[in-house]
């Protein structure tokens, strides 16, 4: 090798080392001591071993104002590239807090956008790892414009490729809106924060004193605001969670999810022991799900938010299904504002990405009360109806116990486009529960009776015998078949197999107008 070659190689090696050195050993040590991994370590944890390839590593900021020309680092505070997850290609960006606090300027935004564009061209998932102080103030409007470029791409990619945001540090101000547009948000217990305005601004504007974690920590966003979908103790477990989620999803909206052969143990026989006949007695619907899906395959989404509705992914004979189920342990499984939002968004995600839907029904009503009415339950509840009606993926339902009134209609009823609806023999499909119904339709008879209590009981018996069963619905065709609990897995799996070739298209339109 002649000297010119040697010099050129040496120069490249030095440049590569500068890229990999990121913010320097001191800042990396600080990142580690706060329990966080570096941007590149996160990429290594996210992708299959040895598959991550960095792109655009030498992109550098053009900014010169406020001494920025002396602070330039190659990569500009973000690592971008591609690799494989479960053997399938994905693109990702990972903000580097050790370089300028991961702040976003023109060059960083350009790097992220280029990776997003590649993900869209390749039709593969995009994962955005956030750990940034926000917009780089020294770069002025260019940083803000960079956010707009990212939001625009997030929006255009929505429903085309799965987009996942992983918040492993601060994510403040406008930066929050990129994760909010994406499909799923992951956070860690101690180090993640998301807020539009931080505690200092909140205090100066409203006088409210609140800590960072109480304002926008993982606990708040996973259980109160519903912004976050998954929370993990630390970076490593969080990124493993991303890998787990991607295992249920296809690469894009034109493909099917991967098939993962697992243990197909049918525990349907246990179902009659899990669900009490008395419709007032609660049970954990997750035990029902786990009894008949492939072993250990149920992956719950938003487990701590709107707990009256359980949603998540599972596998049946190795194939992904999305599950929506009323949770009788919380608010008796009734639907309210948050559950409607949670369910509708999940259903729409599944419909975007060809994931069949299974609905497990045990619902007494939409939750009554002024708080719900004034909060807009009409508008929010309508989202659930809209989402089910609009979804063209295979839709199978099982009415386990109660299915009353408008809530019954909203939970994947035949009229809203369900393909197959099963019911257990203890199912009660009616306009409302017996007590409420008798109070209305038997009011005059009870008032006139010599013994009102006795008359009421008599009318309750008559109502129960007439309506509180699945057979009238089956006679009218609202239920396809009344099945035994032990037949649950077999029947549901068979229905999804039959529906694999389902093709239902909607009238041509720009997009529907879901009541947001």
């Amino acid at each position: 090798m002649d000297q010119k070659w040697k010099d050129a190689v040496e120069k490249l090696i030095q440049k590569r080392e500068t890229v990999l050195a990121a913010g320097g050993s001191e800042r990396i040590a600080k990142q580690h001591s706060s329990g966080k991994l570096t941007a590149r370590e996160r990429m290594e944890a996210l992708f299959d071993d040895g598959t991550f390839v960095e792109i655009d590593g030498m992109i550098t900021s053009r900014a010169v104002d406020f001494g920025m020309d002396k602070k330039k680092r190659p990569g500009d505070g973000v690592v971008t590239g591609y690799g494989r997850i479960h053997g399938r290609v994905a693109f990702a960006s990972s903000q580097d807090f050790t370089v300028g606090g991961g702040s976003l300027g023109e060059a960083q935004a350009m790097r992220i956008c280029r990776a997003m564009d590649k993900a869209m061209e390749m039709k593969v998932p995009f994962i955005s790892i956030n750990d940034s102080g926000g917009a780089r103030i020294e770069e002025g409007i260019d940083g803000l414009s960079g956010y707009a470029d990212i939001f625009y791409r997030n929006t255009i990619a929505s429903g085309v490729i799965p987009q996942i945001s992983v918040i492993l540090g601060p994510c403040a101000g406008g930066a929050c809106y990129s994760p909010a547009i994406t499909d799923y948000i992951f956070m860690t217990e101690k180090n993640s924060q998301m807020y539009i305005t931080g505690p200092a601004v909140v205090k100066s504007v409203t006088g409210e004193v609140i800590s960072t974690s109480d304002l926008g920590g993982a606990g708040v966003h996973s259980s109160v605001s519903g912004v976050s979908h998954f929370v993990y103790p630390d970076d490593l477990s969080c990124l493993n969670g991303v890998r787990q989620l991607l295992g249920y999803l296809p690469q894009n909206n034109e493909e099917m999810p991967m098939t993962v052969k697992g243990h197909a143990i049918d525990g349907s026989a246990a179902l009659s022991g899990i669900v009490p006949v008395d419709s007032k007695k609660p049970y954990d619907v997750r035990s029902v799900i786990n009894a008949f899906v492939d072993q250990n395959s149920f992956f719950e989404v938003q487990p701590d938010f709107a707990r009256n509705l359980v949603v998540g992914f599972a596998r049946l004979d190795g194939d992904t299904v999305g599950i929506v189920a009323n949770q009788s342990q919380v608010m008796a499984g009734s639907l309210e504002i948050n559950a409607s939002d949670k369910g509708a968004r999940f259903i729409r995600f599944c419909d975007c990405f060809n994931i069949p839907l299974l609905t497990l029904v045990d619902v007494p009503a939409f939750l009554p009360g002024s708080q719900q009415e004034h909060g807009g339950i009409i508008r929010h509840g309508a989202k659930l109806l809209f989402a089910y009606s609009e979804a063209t993926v295979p839709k199978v339902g099982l009415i386990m116990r109660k299915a009353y009134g408008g809530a019954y209609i909203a939970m994947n009823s035949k009229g809203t486009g369900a393909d197959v609806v099963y019911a257990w023999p203890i199912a009660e499909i009616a306009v409302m529960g017996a007590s409420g119904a008798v109070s209305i339709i038997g009011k005059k008879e009870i008032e006139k009776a010599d013994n009102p209590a006795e008359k009421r009981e008599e009318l309750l018996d008559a109502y129960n015998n007439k309506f509180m069963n699945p057979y009238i619905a089956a006679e009218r065709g609202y239920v396809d078949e009344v099945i035994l609990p032990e037949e649950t897995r077999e029947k549901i799996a068979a229905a999804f197999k039959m529906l694999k070739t389902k093709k239902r298209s909607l009238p041509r339109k720009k997009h529907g107008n879901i009541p947001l």
Partner: protein
Amino acid sequence: METEKILAMAVAAAAEENGVEPKRIIVRSFREIHKSSLEKFIADNHITYHKYQLEDSRA
């Protein structure tokens, strides 16, 4: 572990895999691959970690 021992083990493994005698294998060059920064972090902090891995049975 000493480099010579590691090399000897690698030669033995290659010999077994190819069904030849170890002495017939010539090592022309070798490169030491260092632990990655993540691997070091996991080892230094005594973290139990297994990467979640799936396989598409259709592939």
